[in-house]
């Protein structure tokens, strides 16, 4: 859906149009799910965070000023909700230094996390801080410009560059440490 159409949808949500909200929910659910899972790497918080994000969209849509794209605004909400959920659940693991955690069986997203963690790159990404991982994923997976990433994570452009700088260095250090010289799992 073009950003202009999303903007119309968001304006209707701001006017408390439930049909528009349902349309926006269906439009964003899968994107948000994948994004929050990539940021948190915790299957058990994803659903809750996505629901919180949708509720925040409903409540705060009237305050959306249209200066950024709707997707930037929504991903920004999701970023902050995801980080809060991580801090709430396991403050001690927020720096991402612990090893891969056990995840619940029989859930497709859990299987995906396990599959990803089974790869060398997945393990290395898991060991980055959530803030660094967000910049890496938003750049390489979602293909966003650093200015847009700065808007999403709510920090200056230079901070985005700095986080990416450290993430790149850590990935370089970790991959040989994990026994591989390439990114292939």
């Amino acid at each position, binding site marked *: 859906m073009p950003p202009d159409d999303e903007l119309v949808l968001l304006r209707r949500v701001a006017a408390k149009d439930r049909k528009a909200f349902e349309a926006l929910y269906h439009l964003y659910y*899968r994107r948000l*799910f*994948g994004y929050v899972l990539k940021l948190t790497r915790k299957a058990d918080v994803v659903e809750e965070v996505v629901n919180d994000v949708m509720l925040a969209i409903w409540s705060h849509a009237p305050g959306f000023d249209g200066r950024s794209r709707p997707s930037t605004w929504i991903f920004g909400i999701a970023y902050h909700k995801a980080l809060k959920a991580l801090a709430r659940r396991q403050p001690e693991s927020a720096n991402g230094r612990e090893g891969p955690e056990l995840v619940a069986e029989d859930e497709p997203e859990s299987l995906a996390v396990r599959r*990803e963690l089974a790869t060398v790159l997945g393990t290395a990404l898991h060991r980055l801080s959530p803030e660094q991982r967000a910049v890496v994923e938003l*750049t390489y997976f979602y293909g966003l410009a650093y200015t847009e990433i700065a808007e999403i994570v709510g920090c200056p452009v230079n901070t985005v560059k700095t986080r*990416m700088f450290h993430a790149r260095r850590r990935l370089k250090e970790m991959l040989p440490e994990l026994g591989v010289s390439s990114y292939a799992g």
Partner: protein
Amino acid sequence: MHEREDHDERIHQRIWELLPWYVNGTLSEADRERVEDHSAVCRRCRDEIETCRQTSEAIQGLGEVAPSPHPVQLQRVLARIDEAEQAEKSEWQEQRAGRRPFGLPLRAFQELIAATPRPLRGALMAQVAIIVLLVGVLVWTELRTVRSPAVPGAPVIYQTLSDSAPAQRPGGTVALRMMFSRGATEKEIRDLLLAVHGEITAGPSPFGAYTVEVAAAGHPVSVVLTRLRSDSAVALAEPVAGSAPAKGTR
């Protein structure tokens, strides 16, 4: 020589920082040209561009889990919206139902007291009591007289509570401005008016003041006023400006 090397290194660092976004194709045209010009002569940056490409491809290769929403999940969100809106509505209705003239200031005062450290609470209460007392005195003073005579002996000018009643009446009566006590009954007021041969001729004004005409003949106005003011049913009894002599009226 060192300065030149430092300068080149700074440029290299700035370009190096941009490489992930060069690879994902989101750099501005100016930045893209800078990266290309520099990497043409910088082996480290060319190698890093390759590393960034590999990282990008590998991360994209990990894919994404993106299940479709189950209808129950949407219903859960809608139910939470309903709950939030219902709570908001109830709160609003509660506020409306519980709205009393002094409800809000009183609650704010209670919160202020609760937030004040215990040793200071007494001082705060005393201060509020003084303010209330002063406001009371001010209101009372306003109701009684406002202006004093500038020159001794000059007629006292009384401020009326309403301009609707004429000051002087034909037939030798004196007009008084009167307010009755909040708890005064109709019978008490009636008995009082009969005792002073008074008659309500106007009022109540927006302030609750009445114009009462009393017979001036036979009794000095001061006696009538003293009688009225001593009655618990009377909150205020004053001659209307110009309707009585200054002397002995106060």
